[in-house]
């Protein structure tokens, strides 16, 4: 036996308590872990209740179909027994008349009417008209009484429409968000051109985000490049010019751009003074104004990641390339530029993600032709109270954002997504 193991033996507690020390240590470690883990709990619970849950319940509204399902349950149950051909059994009519009567005078009747009108235009007035005539006098033949109120109650198609609309969920809103719908035969069809607006809006959102990202890259790259090359003191000066607008309220900047771009504004005055145009150019309430303001707001988000990547690029590689006879521009393009790609990727994705969700800037500076998806989400929530449609468009926008965010998180790691400011 060596001296070392002798000492170890001497120091070791009696055999029985060896595992207990190990256990105690593990238990203490576990306790510490649990304690620190518990620190995350308040925020996790807070975000679950005030953020994750609301968004999840919003998204379920995009497939929610409660109007007929919840308000005409008996009718639907009776309709199940019907083969869909010829007239439904009289029990269907009786259940329907009873349920419509009890829905009369409550918001439910309007919900049913609105929902059925989506199956076939004109069903809204059919429901309202029928409800007005209810209740039917006692001991009448319900089917013939309803058919007397409106001949459509005698058609199988009307009842098929009620059955079709009675599911607990519907793909209607999600399909509508990409300009598709289901026809009476259950096929997915493209919406008629006069109703097909959303694909257009989505493409516009995508396209405008792409343009703004491109402009930010073209303008931001030289700034970041020069900042990375200059001495600290000078680059801090430049940084101030980038950070001051970054910290300034978005509304202040939008107001400033209205002042600058209006017909009597500074930009038009300068353009006219140097003779570029005779009359003032229309720069506001069209795409020009929206692009200018959005690039102004998002440029810092491009410059900052670019700068942090460029700051870490060692100058020796370019020097080596030049000393080996590579011309300066070629060495910039072949040696320096590829090293900036992570910064370009991060900055571009960040700007693009933020762009897609923009609402305030197009709302204040654009015409209806500049409104992006966000505008329509707000519109359906506040103006027409069509929450299903708002939810479906939210689902599309959120899906696109999360896909891009995952790509972004891959690039930089989720905890390093910083320097994001409100829009």
């Amino acid at each position, binding site marked *: 036996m060596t001296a070392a193991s002798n000492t170890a033996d001497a120091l070791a507690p009696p055999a029985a308590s060896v595992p207990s020390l190990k256990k105690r240590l593990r238990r203490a470690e576990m306790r510490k*872990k649990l304690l*620190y*883990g*518990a*620190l*995350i709990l308040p*925020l*996790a619970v*807070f*975000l679950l209740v*005030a*953020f*994750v849950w*609301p*968004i999840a319940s*919003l998204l379920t509204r995009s497939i929610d179909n409660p109007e007929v399902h919840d308000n005409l349950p008996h009718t639907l149950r009776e309709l199940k027994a019907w083969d869909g051909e010829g007239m439904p059994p009289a029990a269907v009519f009786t259940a329907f008349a009873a349920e419509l009567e009890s829905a009369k005078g409550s918001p439910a009747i309007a919900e049913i009417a609105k929902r059925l009108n989506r199956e076939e235009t004109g069903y809204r007035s059919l429901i309202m008209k029928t409800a007005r005539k209810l209740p039917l006098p006692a001991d009448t033949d319900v089917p013939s009484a309803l058919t007397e109120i409106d001949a459509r109650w005698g058609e199988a198609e009307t009842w098929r429409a009620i059955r079709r609309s009675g599911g607990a969920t519907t793909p209607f809103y999600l399909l509508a968000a990409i300009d598709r719908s289901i026809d009476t035969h259950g096929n997915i069809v493209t919406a008629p051109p006069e109703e097909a607006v959303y694909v257009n809006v989505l493409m516009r959102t995508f396209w405008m985000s792409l343009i703004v990202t491109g402009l930010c890259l073209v*303008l931001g790259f*030289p*700034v970041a490049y020069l900042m990375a090359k200059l001495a600290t003191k000078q680059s801090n000066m*430049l940084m101030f010019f980038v950070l*001051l*607008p970054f*910290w*300034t*309220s978005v*509304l202040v*900047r*939008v*107001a*400033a751009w209205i*002042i*600058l771009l*209006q017909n*009597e504004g*500074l930009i038009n005055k300068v353009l006219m003074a140097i003779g570029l145009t005779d009359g003032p150019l229309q720069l506001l309430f069209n795409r020009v104004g929206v692009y200018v303001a959005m690039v102004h707001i998002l*440029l*810092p988000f491009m410059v900052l990641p670019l700068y942090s990547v460029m700051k870490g690029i060692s100058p020796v590689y370019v020097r080596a390339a030049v000393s080996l006879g590579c011309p*300066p521009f070629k060495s910039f393009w072949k040696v320096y530029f590829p090293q900036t790609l992570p910064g370009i990727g991060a900055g571009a994705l960040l700007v693009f993600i933020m762009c*897609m*969700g923009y*609402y305030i800037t197009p709302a*204040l500076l654009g015409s209806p032709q500049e409104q992006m998806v*966000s505008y329509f*989400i*707000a519109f359906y*929530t506040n103006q027409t109270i069509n929450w299903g449609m708002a939810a479906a468009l*939210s689902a599309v926008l*959120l899906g696109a954002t*999360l896909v891009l*965010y995952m790509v972004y*998180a891959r690039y930089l790691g*989720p*905890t*390093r*997504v*910083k320097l*994001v*400011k*409100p*829009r």
Partner: protein
Amino acid sequence: MLQPYASPLERAWHYGLRGLVGIVLVFLILPILVIVPLSFNADTFLMYPMAGFSMRWYEEIFTSGQWQLAMMNSLIVSPLSTLLAMVLGTLAAIGLVRTDFPGKALLTAVLISPMVVPVVIVGVAVYIFFAPLGLTGSYTGLVIAHAVLGVPFVVTTVTATLQGFDFNLVRAASSLGANPVVAFFKVTLPLVAPGIISGGLFAFATSFDEVVVTLFLASPEQTTLPRQMFSGIRENISPAIAAVATILILLSTLMLVTLEGLRRRNERIRGKRA
């Protein structure tokens, strides 16, 4: 920078780059410079040349009931939501740095996701969710929603600060008899304070500039400063907007300077230790 033996092409590159950057910087700073003088315009128009110097618009915003209400509301909602975000965010950041468990990366991504989810979606979701709970048109609802938007900034900045924090210092404190609470307040907190404060500044700026969620949640009594500016810009844009803007620019300069100071302090402390 430019060597005396530089070729004409290199000279053109040198000055061309600086010229281009100069133009971009003017583009960045011009709007902020343009709006400030107009807040002193004697006239009611927001355009140059100015009619004369006057303080009437500042008088207006400090005496008009609407602007006063908006300012007061902002000064209620933003500090409260910032405080909530700072407490919850700091605790969570400490927890995230000190533990490791499966799914931690996913949890972290969820905790900072309010930063990337389009704010309109947050607004609509919270509005529909809060309405039956009676939280729309209330300060409570607004504070909660703003804290949600601000908390990722606290989590990210405090996490970043803690990554440079030596947890042996806490052990040392414990070994000298401090209980965990004392050790936190006497050792951890002072050292990570710059991170917490800069995260808090981000959260404050987020709330203080938040329009979209406020548009959905706030009733006219909870109109905040940005909400009031939004309707001001939309309905009748007057130099009163420029006056508010000037005050906000002053505030953002102040925040920027504070943040820069914190950053330098942090760098100095780290430099010393290295």
